[in-house]
């Protein structure tokens, strides 16, 4: 006799990010529910999974039940890239159950499904939508089969038939303790959440027997390619990307003098926050960082939230992007989530084997997010930073910092503690001129300069100048000339 545990095969769903969220894919022969309000993408998800998984050896049956007229469904679903005409009638068959459903006799519906399943021997079965089946039964005022019995019998039929099954249905009341939920092995809940004028699509795996799903609401997007689920960024296996630099190596910043201020450059794999007021030169510093990488053969990735693409972006950076040394993450989509940006960044890092990443800036990033994500910005950002760090890349983030001279802060989000190094830039007034100063505030586990250095920006970029000697109170914005010891002694004598 064979002993051991039953082996559950997990099927790749063909939906980007969904397998991660499901905890490894769709369990074969599972009985699943895809539920959510109208327009939340249930049918699209069903179709995408079906076209990905259906083969002549594992054919799929897609039962349509009233609800959406099948002609309409075919009309719209074929617009998606995954809709594969070649699979039609060989691997994928659509069957309409309108006549059986209209009779209001759920036994008839079950009977027809059973007969078709026996005739076709499918490995995948979809019923869209189960809600229509139920409503049809109710409207007749009949009690042929209760909803629960219908679902249970269908579940039994499909499991013993060894078909992975999906019941698709609009379902609005989440709190309703519907008996279906106890029967289903998997429950995928889709929804659209609105806040202000922004609508964000979210998906939740409320249940998936036998595997550890990623809890929580996961945002997804529907494009012509189909559904993309943005799983929270996972910690990658360290150093799977990027050129192999010796541990403890330091990256040059591309600004003369800055490496020395940082104790020899930015340690590899660190995250650096560059904070400063508007126009102080944060983006220029970020470009210099990427350009320096390109000079030593390292690729970079930038997510720019501030500037319009190819406008007012420095020429050097534009050239790097054109040459393909620096990848750009598209940040123009409306209602972004941190997870989506994380996924885009990590995909781009992997593609280019990039070792330098720039996010310019966190303030713009926050504005680009859908309002619903702004509350959790700090938490998500922390996840993003650790996920980026785990790819082995070195990250530079800029942050807008309002100049407040009575309040020394480095970032508006408390992001300072998230990062390994901090550079702060400020404006000061000296001799009726607005001057810029820069200081290295922190480089974790490393000695660094504590100088407040003047700097200016010219054609070549950032030029670090001398320490403003003989002045004090620089961080107050209005430095005063330090009194010499002899001056004060003389004054003391006078008194």
């Amino acid at each position: 006799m064979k002993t051991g545990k039953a082996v559950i095969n997990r099927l790749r769903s063909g939906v980007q990010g969904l397998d991660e969220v499901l905890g490894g894919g769709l369990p074969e022969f599972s009985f699943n529910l895809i539920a959510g309000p109208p327009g939340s993408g249930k049918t699209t998800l069903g179709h995408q999974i079906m076209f990905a998984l259906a083969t002549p050896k594992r054919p799929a049956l897609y039962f349509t039940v009233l609800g959406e007229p099948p002609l309409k469904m075919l009309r719209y679903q074929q617009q998606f890239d995954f809709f594969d005409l070649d699979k039609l009638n060989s691997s994928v068959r659509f069957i309409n159950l309108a006549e059986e459903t209209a009779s209001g006799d759920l036994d008839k519906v079950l009977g027809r499904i059973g007969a078709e399943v026996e005739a076709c021997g499918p490995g995948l079965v979809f019923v869209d939508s189960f809600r229509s089946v139920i409503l049809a039964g109710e409207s007749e005022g009949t009690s042929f089969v209760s909803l629960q019995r219908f679902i249970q019998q269908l579940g039994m039929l499909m499991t013993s038939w060894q078909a992975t099954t999906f019941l698709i249905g609009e379902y609005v009341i989440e709190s309703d303790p519907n008996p279906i939920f106890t029967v289903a092995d998997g429950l995928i809940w889709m929804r659209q959440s609105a806040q202000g004028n922004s609508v964000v699509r979210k998906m939740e795996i409320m249940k998936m027997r036998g595997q550890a799903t990623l809890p929580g609401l996961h945002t997804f997007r529907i494009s012509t390619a189909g559904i993309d689920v943005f799983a929270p960024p996972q910690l990658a296996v360290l150093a799977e990307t990027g050129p192999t630099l010796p541990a403890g190596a330091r990256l040059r910043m591309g600004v003369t003098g800055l490496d020395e201020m940082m104790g020899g450059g930015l340690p590899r794999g660190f995250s650096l926050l560059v904070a400063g007021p508007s126009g102080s030169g944060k983006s220029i510093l970020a470009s210099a960082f990427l350009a320096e990488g390109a000079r030593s053969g390292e690729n970079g990735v930038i997510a720019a939230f501030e500037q319009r693409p190819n406008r007012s972006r420095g020429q050097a950076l534009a050239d790097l992007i054109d040459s393909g040394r620096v990848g750009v993450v598209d940040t123009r989509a409306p209602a972004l989530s941190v997870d989506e940006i994380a996924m885009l960044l990590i995909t781009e890092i992997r593609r280019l084997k990039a070792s330098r990443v720039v996010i310019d800036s966190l303030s713009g990033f926050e504005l680009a997010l859908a309002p619903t994500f702004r509350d959790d910005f700090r938490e998500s950002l922390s996840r993003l930073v650790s996920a980026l760090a785990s790819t082995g890349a070195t990250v530079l983030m800029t942050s807008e910092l309002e100049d407040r001279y009575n309040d020394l802060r480095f970032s508006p989000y408390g992001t300072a503690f998230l990062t390994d190094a901090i550079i702060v830039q400020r404006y000061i007034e000296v001799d009726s001129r607005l001057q810029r100063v820069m200081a290295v505030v922190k480089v974790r586990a490393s000695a660094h300069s504590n100088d407040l250095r003047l700097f200016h920006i010219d054609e070549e970029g950032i030029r670090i100048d001398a320490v403003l000697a003989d002045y004090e109170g620089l961080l107050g914005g209005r430095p005063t000339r330090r009194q010499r010891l002899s001056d004060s002694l003389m004054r003391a004598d006078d008194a």
Partner: protein
Amino acid sequence: MQSEARRIQAALAQLAAEGVDAGRIADTAVSTWREVDAALSPIIGQHGVAALFRRSLYLTRADFPALATVHDGELQPGEFAALRSALSQQTSADAAIANGALLQVFYDLLASMIGGSLTERLLRSVGNNLSSGHAVQVTSP
């Protein structure tokens, strides 16, 4: 694209040219429609097919008054007796032309909704035995 419809049209016109009577043309037309119904109704439902059929009659009736009577009569899903009777009262050439136009409109209508490739794929098997089977049948007495 809708070359399928044209192929069926041509086969019917061929029969008419060979001097087959209108009753035979009508029988052949109806058997084609049954095949269409059989191919589509599992997917879009018998009522779905019937609705498309009725819309096709509506669109062609101005040019073919014979079809107007079919449109105005009571249509049951999957039932083409009215069409048979209307066609059989025409000359065989007219019957072939009227049915050909109706079929073309039906195919075009479907293609406008679900696209030419899907239409072609779903109705590929329709009328496959027309040129051989039926033609042989009608030549025998």
